[in-house]
């Protein structure tokens, strides 16, 4: 039980760092698109985001089976089905965001920072919106039995 709780806390901490890095990434990429590039940050944030994504993904995978049996099957399905659906939506969206995070890393190394492509703008924006959706969803699901 201790390791599951620790995994959940670390998962949340890594998710917070991921949310921060992808939000900053979207901001610096759009700023570069408007003629104010920051090459150092435009290369740093995607790498940080990938590291955080892998940490969030690994920790989430480790605690997911326990959630599926002890939380969803034993409580959520009966008392808060909406939270179970929201959680599954979050998990599947996280999978779809992975390729975009990887694409952002590759594009940040391959492109001229002063002229980010539409692909890079799209990746940065979609990842930021998706991660924010997942962070809020995770908070809502975790709060079902706390407050």
């Amino acid at each position, binding site marked *: 039980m201790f390791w599951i709780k620790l995994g959940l806390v670390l998962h949340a901490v890594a998710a917070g760092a991921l949310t921060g890095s992808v939000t900053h990434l979207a901001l610096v990429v759009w700023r570069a698109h408007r003629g104010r590039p920051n090459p150092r940050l435009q290369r740093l944030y995607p790498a940080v985001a990938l590291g955080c994504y892998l940490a969030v993904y690994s920790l989430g995978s480790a605690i997911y089976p326990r959630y599926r049996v002890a939380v969803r099957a034993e409580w959520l399905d009966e008392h808060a089905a909406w939270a179970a659906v929201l959680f599954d*939506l979050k998990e*599947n969206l996280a999978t*779809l965001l992975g390729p*975009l995070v*990887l694409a952002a890393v*590759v594009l940040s190394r*391959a492109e*001229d920072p002063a002229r980010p492509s539409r*692909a890079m703008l799209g990746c940065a924006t979609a990842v930021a919106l998706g991660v924010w959706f997942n962070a809020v969803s995770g908070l809502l699901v975790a709060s079902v039995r706390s407050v």
Partner: protein
Amino acid sequence: MSARGRFATGVGTLAAATVYLFTTTTRAGVLYYLPARAEWTWSPPTGVIAMDWFARSHATLAVAAAATWAAWRWAPAEPKTCARWAGRLWPMSWLMLAWSAGYTALWLCARP
């Protein structure tokens, strides 16, 4: 370099979204995890909690990485050809990702 990057990531994203959508809609070749028994199986017994997310998710991410690497490695040598293909691949990637997300949302909301 820029066109090569857009080509490689376009291929990787499209391949990953296609694998995700295929495995999610068909469940073909998906390995299930039984969390209550801590076992893996290709055919889960009825009445037992079975998770297909691990297989679908890991396959999607593995294909994204492998396809991006392969497309970078074997990208067309001519930058203009790369750019032309990247311009076709990325709209298809966005379309496939949107389709995958939309299908997932409808499937989960309609689930009994």
